[in-house]
């Protein structure tokens, strides 16, 4: 389609998805920012001030002067929120590292597998990604509950049963289990395209396989590592279902704190402030991710 500039139909191709995303993705964000500067009120909608269009310019001025950063000061003063942010970053960072450790050998083995197996292996990795996160977390709960299969196995082997559910261990296990396809797929995509003559050259020059891996394969797979790590890290920071169902009641990840603030405490302005801050934290990794994606597209280009 070289000619969208030419006619009305061509113009619509750009305008329709653009307008939809602006109306249901961009503008909703602006309203979150605006409500994060408001105060909770016992009204419908439950926040104030409201912009009074009928009052004209004075209404706009009154509205603007009533906005405040009170919610953000409240976030800074209450250690609950700071702890949630730090805990989320810590869990996301550590589990991304774990995902790399678990995912890299799998992706590497997939790339080395015979060519006719690769579509099947790829499908086996993709299939869980299509299965509901809720269902997969529930499947883990089945195994981890107190008289579940894991403890039955431990007892059969002569160990003491342990408490698994409602621990940080369960949260890490749940995250690695749920996000593994997100890590393996970009790694596999990079490793699969790796120029094998480079490894042959390294071997011809006498590099032992392990050395060739460290000096050739690993550095060349950096784009895949970056894409996989960011694709996991960013959504994990805001994860709700996993800490809610597998974590202890004091596993305060920020997505869960936002949920509670919204549904239990019904403090919409404070929940919005939590969301704005979460987004500010994620802006840097999201920007890096977009950059990595753009570079990958150029390479394929």
């Amino acid at each position: 389609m070289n000619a969208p500039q030419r006619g009305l139909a061509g113009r619509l191709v750009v305008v329709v998805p653009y307008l939809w995303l602006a109306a249901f993705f961009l503008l909703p964000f602006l309203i979150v920012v605006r409500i994060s500067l408001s105060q909770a009120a016992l009204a419908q909608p439950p926040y104030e001030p409201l912009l009074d269009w009928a009052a004209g310019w004075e209404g706009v001025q009154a509205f603007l002067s009533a906005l405040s950063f009170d919610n953000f000061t409240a976030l800074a003063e209450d250690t609950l929120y700071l702890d949630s942010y730090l805990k989320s970053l810590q869990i996301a960072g550590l589990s991304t590292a774990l995902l790399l450790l678990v995912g890299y050998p799998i992706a590497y083995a997939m790339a080395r597998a015979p060519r006719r197996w690769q579509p099947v292996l790829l499908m086996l990795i993709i299939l869980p990604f299509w299965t509901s996160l809720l269902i997969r977390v529930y499947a883990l709960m089945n195994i981890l509950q107190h008289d579940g299969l894991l403890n039955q196995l431990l007892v059969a082997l002569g160990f003491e049963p342990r408490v698994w559910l409602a621990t940080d261990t369960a949260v890490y296990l749940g995250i690695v289990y749920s996000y593994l396809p997100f890590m393996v797929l970009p790694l596999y995509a990079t490793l699969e395209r790796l120029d094998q003559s480079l490894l042959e050259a390294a071997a011809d020059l006498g590099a032992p396989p392990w050395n060739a891996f460290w000096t050739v394969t690993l550095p060349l797979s950096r784009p895949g590592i970056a894409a996989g790590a960011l694709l996991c890290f960013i959504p994990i920071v805001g994860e709700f279902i996993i800490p809610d169902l597998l974590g202890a009641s004091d596993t305060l990840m920020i997505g869960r704190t936002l949920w509670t603030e919204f549904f239990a405490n019904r403090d919409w302005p404070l929940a919005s402030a939590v969301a704005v801050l979460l987004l500010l934290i994620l802006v840097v990794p999201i920007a890096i991710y977009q950059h990595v994606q753009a570079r990958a597209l150029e390479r394929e280009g």
Partner: protein
Amino acid sequence: MRKGLSAFNVTALVLGLAFLYLPIAILVIYSFNASRLVTVWAGWSTQWYAELWNDAALLDAAWTTLRIGLLSATAATVLGTLAAVVLVRVPRFRGRFLFTGLVYAPLVMPEVITGLSLLLWFVALAIDRGFWTITIAHTTVTLCFVAVVVQARLRTFDVSLEEAAMDLGCPPLRTFLTVTLPVIWPAIAAGWVLAFTLSVDDLVIASFTTGPGATTLPIRIYSDVRLGVKPEINAICTIMVALVALGVIAISLLTRRAGRDEAPAR
């Protein structure tokens, strides 16, 4: 990449796949357990599936989920395909940078933020929340996934075919329908199935954008799961897993056959 699997590679693959599939397999097996105690095996039975049929609220939730999935996936496929065409075939227009950002951002955006912002937006516009607000929310998020899938296919598509058609006087829209679409439709179909499963699976965004009377299956499952593991939930989860697996397998066969059909023409 050098081919050939070492013992270490095989171990990594076997352990990795076992880790991914064992919990689901156990869930499926235990959904056929005769005992109400979810941890004690008491022989095979399909009673929990029979019980699903008597749960009117659950069937209602399933029907709502299905309708939202069909509607939002179809809308997302149309919008997402348009977005993909824009990304790949329209190199320059005002606001292209913002547009690219808007297509990729929802893919990594934490669901709690997307859900919260859409809800606040619907409230600010005084739109009654329920079936339609969930449908709009799902369309918005899943259209980006469709765009990514379709644009990947469009990038490998030979532009000279389109150019030849247009040089011969075929208008752009007709070129797209008669030249481009027949080649990229497996990617579009795959995008539709992906959008449908994402919609059917979604809990967080649906919880924010729902209103009275619109309970989806994941919302219902979540409220049950919080109270613990129950055999009926195992059964409904098994049905959902089976449906998704069938969809994915159908799509991969479809894509592969389309790939074979296309191959001799090259």
